[in-house]
């Protein structure tokens, strides 16, 4: 149980770190660049979901 808590804590830190860096970099992007990035990120998560779904997860 303690291991899973540590895993969860690590994942949370990773996600928050990546989120912070992405927010910092996105500040300097142009408006069309931000929109394209958002579209691609949405598509990426959707495709990853489909991939895991096809693997039976």
């Amino acid at each position: 149980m303690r291991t899973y808590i540590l895993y969860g804590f690590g994942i949370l830190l990773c996600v928050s770190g990546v989120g912070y860096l992405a927010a910092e970099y996105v500040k300097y992007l142009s408006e069309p660049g931000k929109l394209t990035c958002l579209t691609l990120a949405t598509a990426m998560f959707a495709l990853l979901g489909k991939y895991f779904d096809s693997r039976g997860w």
Partner: protein
Amino acid sequence: MAAKRGKNLYLYLALACFAGIIAIFIVDGYFGLYDTLYVTAQEREQVIEPDYWQQPWVKEQGYGIGAEWGEPVYFRYEIVNRGFSTYSASLEAAVWKGGEKIVHLLDESVSLAPFEEVTVEWTLQAEELAETGFGVGEYTVQIRRGEVERKVVMSLYERPVDYKEIPPRALPR
């Protein structure tokens, strides 16, 4: 085999999207309008890169430089248009003190074709400041390019006193 490839297709597409995001960061960083300011004072050239202007403290307070009173300060302002349309704007540079414009340095319009760059130079002489009745102290050089404003805070100080070198005395024997 074909079924496995079909399953992996989603993964490959997701990776392609990720590569696309990275590519946008690189391409978006390249395209745009960039300005670099070179300030030469006391035989030293300081470069204020385009990224530096984006820092919040530079936006508010300006970039600080020091120079000796009496020596000229050389400015070189470089504008690069990495875009597909022509960029035109008025370019103005002036020295401000206490919220008042005291010396006019430059006033011209620039027009840059796509992927072209232009460099504008001007010099600030201490005599110009002395004519306005000001002496050593802090001044703000404001560069206005269209809607964009760049600030350089200049500290002008007097030459330090030269101390005479005293030869060491011979020790008594």
